[in-house]
């Protein structure tokens, strides 16, 4: 009997020791009780103390390999530990970064970048034009490109599309590293926003020797990466977060003011708020429930993203194949309720697909040039509905496909109640897991659903060309006139003519063919500690800049 007890005790001890070794605390609480090391109370001593900012992400940092990553959070980290030819500044304008400057040929097709002197990787290797060529080719190569973002290079660079689809060779791609400091790129068509594109993660350089050496282990650990940006990683765990410290080899290191950035992953919004109040975080997003309580707090601010949430109709779906039904559904809800009541966080009711501040031409925004395309009108909606029912023979039973995140479910409830009130119809909200819903949309097995799209760059094309590929996901929409407008716009050199084509395309998409129905443009409310300044959040592309931040 005694023997059996001792063996079970031994097993327990083994279990405990196994557990204890595997705990891996991140032990990053160097600042201990002093939050962020910059507690506003203690003056005088501040000059010697390390300047730190504590920030959070609402999801994990999934992948730091720029060839395969595709989520915003990984983009946020990569944007600060690496850098491209240009970088967006506080006004979201591209400024020379690793490039000293650029020369554009008169036809707008050839860009000659000259790299800055003295730029180095974090291991001392110089950053050369060949590094850019290696990275750009790798991001298009179907063997290595796993994130689905190859298009952001292959759509624009000559020879890229063929290479990306496996039909062309790397040599036919028009990227030329003339010498260590000169990079020449030829585009398919003139692209006014090309410099902005180079601020995007996939345009960042990679050290070929290092990446090949690391092989499959590249970017899995901080020591398996090289840094060209204002910061480098000292610790990284996808589920807990990362620590960034200043990169001494960065060309502009003198202007980087904050020495350390702690990034934590926190999925529950309420926990993040508690952490903020406890001083463990310097910035937190507010959920719509909390906005009213904090609206008058001095630490409260809002910002916007170039992201539009909208309803996608399936133009071949039962009931939604009828144009009048779609038009009715477009007009039968009041998006200002979303703006003011349900979201209440700086989001704005949408009247078109392109968000409000997105550029148009001649310093006017696209939205200003176009005006409001869709505005709620219950009476008209009812007319369209009755017309549609007459054409179909009977009123269709509608199901709204909704993924299972809170925002989409709220949108579903909102639309359901609005349609009941304004059209007197009962719409079923069909909630599915993200994957199931994606599969249904890929198969065209839906009538209409809520979805959203964020801009990759500051031009209406980032939205509008989505509907030129005729997939079920985009509503099985096929309009030769629309396709032609998009194709021509891609080739058009004259800015004004090009924007006019895009304006017309948006009009066709929303007002004439009712393929989609806009809900809102994304805005965010958050609290930020007053001693943290100049954290830049871009509404598109690389989400956040830590480089310009300061701490008082």
């Amino acid at each position, binding site marked *: 009997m005694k023997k059996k007890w001792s063996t*079970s005790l031994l097993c327990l001890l083994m279990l405990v020791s*196994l557990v204890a070794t595997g705990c891996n*605390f991140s032990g990053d609480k160097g600042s201990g009780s002093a939050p962020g090391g910059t507690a506003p109370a203690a003056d005088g001593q501040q000059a010697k103390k390390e300047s730190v900012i504590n920030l959070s992400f609402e999801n994990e940092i999934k992948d730091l390999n720029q060839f395969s990553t595709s989520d915003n959070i990984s983009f946020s980290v990569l944007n600060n530990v690496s850098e491209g030819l240009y970088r967006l500044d506080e006004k979201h304008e591209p400024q020379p970064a690793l490039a000293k400057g650029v020369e554009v040929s008169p036809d707008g097709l050839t860009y000659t970048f000259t790299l800055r002197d003295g730029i180095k990787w974090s291991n001392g290797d110089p950053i050369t034009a060949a590094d850019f060529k290696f990275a750009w080719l790798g991001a298009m190569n179907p063997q290595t490109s796993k994130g689905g973002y190859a298009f952001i290079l292959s759509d624009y660079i000559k020879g890229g599309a063929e290479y990306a689809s496996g039909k062309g060779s790397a040599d036919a791609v028009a990227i030329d590293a003339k010498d260590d400091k000169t990079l020449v790129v030829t585009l398919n068509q003139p692209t006014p926003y090309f410099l902005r594109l180079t601020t995007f993660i996939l345009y960042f350089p990679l050290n070929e020797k290092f990446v090949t050496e690391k092989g499959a282990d590249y970017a899995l650990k901080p020591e398996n990466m090289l840094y060209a940006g204002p910061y480098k990683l000292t610790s990284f765990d996808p589920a807990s977060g990362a620590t960034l410290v200043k990169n001494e080899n960065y060309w502009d290191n003198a202007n980087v003011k904050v020495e350390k950035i702690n990034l934590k992953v926190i999925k529950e919004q309420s926990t993040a708020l508690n952490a903020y109040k406890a001083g463990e975080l310097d910035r937190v997003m507010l959920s719509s429930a909390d906005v009213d309580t904090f609206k008058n707090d001095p630490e409260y601010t809002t910002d916007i993203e170039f992201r539009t949430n909208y309803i996608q109709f399936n133009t071949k779906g039962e009931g939604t194949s009828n144009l009048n039904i779609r038009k009715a559904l477009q007009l039968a809800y009041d998006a200002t309720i979303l703006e003011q009541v349900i979201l209440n966080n700086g989001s704005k009711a949408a009247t078109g697909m392109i968000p409000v501040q997105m550029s148009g031409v001649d310093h006017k925004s696209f939205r200003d040039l176009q005006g409001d395309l869709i505005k709620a009108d219950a009476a008209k909606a009812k007319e369209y509905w009755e017309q549609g029912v007459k054409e179909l023979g009977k009123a269709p039973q509608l199901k709204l496909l909704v993924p299972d995140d809170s925002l989409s479910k709220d949108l579903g409830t909102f639309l359901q109640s609005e349609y009941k009130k304004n059209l007197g119809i009962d719409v079923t909200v069909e909630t599915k897991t993200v994957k199931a819903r994606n599969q249904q949309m890929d198969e065209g097995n839906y009538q209409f659903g809520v979805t959203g799209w964020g801009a990759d760059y500051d031009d209406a094309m980032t939205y509008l060309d989505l509907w030129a590929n005729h997939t079920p996901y985009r509503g099985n929409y096929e309009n030769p006139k629309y396709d032609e407008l998009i194709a021509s716009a891609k080739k058009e050199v004259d800015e004004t003519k090009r924007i006019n084509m895009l304006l017309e395309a948006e009009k066709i998409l929303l007002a004439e063919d009712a393929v989609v129905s806009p809900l809102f443009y994304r805005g965010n409310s958050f609290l930020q500690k007053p001693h943290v300044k100049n954290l830049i959040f871009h509404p598109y592309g690389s989400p956040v800049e830590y480089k310009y931040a300061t701490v008082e």
Partner: protein
Amino acid sequence: MKRYIGMRLVYLLITLFVITTATFFLMKQLPGTPFDEEKLNRLPVEERQLLYASYGLDQPVYVQYVRYLANVVQGDFGTSFTYKNMPVKDIIANRIGPSALIGLQAVVLGLSIGLILGIIAAYRHNSAWDYFTMFIAVLGVSVPNFVLAALLQYYVGLKWGLLPVAFWDSYENSILPSVALSVGVVAIIARFARNEMLEVLQQDYITTAKAKGLTNMAVVMRHAVRNSLIPVVTILGPIVVNLLTGSLVIENIFGVPGIGSLFVDSIKMNDYSTIMGITIFYSAFYVFIMLIVDMLYSVIDPRIRLASGGE
């Protein structure tokens, strides 16, 4: 006994095999792909096919299955689809630690407090003690654990500043999650211990022992407790497994990078290799714990025949 263990190990392997197979095929039925469909939608169909092929996902399911088994047998559990290129083995190894620590602490805490409460309640049956301890125990299982976690976080963490609010920086971060998790264990153990003790205390041999002149304490300790342990051991098995394999809710609320949230996330994201890796790990662990529990049975109660009907 040795023969019995040997047989059980064989059964363990068979069970593992069946679980792995069933899970693999069920998992492949999950709708969607392991990739970000919204982003992939921009790719022309040929490029998407190339992507699937590079992961071997274009093969028929049974081919993928055989390939997977062949790899597993050699110790290769593949790489995750969500954390691209990260070996599943490493991910699991990293994420188990926190969950196991919290789980273990919760079990130890819950077991000790639960046993004490249950034994006291039975000992002083129908007294104020009985009602009080049972009420506490019941409350423990009636309050949803995220409510409890939220309250702990708000009061102990934020308002009184005694412990960190969240994250996983040092040992103190594990205390609040463990406490939140242990409350359910206390409740279950307390009730079971109480019930069994009550039953045992009615038995004749207890009366005999008391008649022999043993003190109440000796009676309780030497006879009653030992005999009450069986159902407690039964219930302990699944509890241990549940706790050590992580609680999604607690992990999300306290920002703990544990395996519970990894598992749920990988299922929702169709991360095939991670799902399989964790399933195999969980099942092996569970079957192993069940073996230990059954062995403990025979230690505690030799009357229970373990091998075939009458040995």
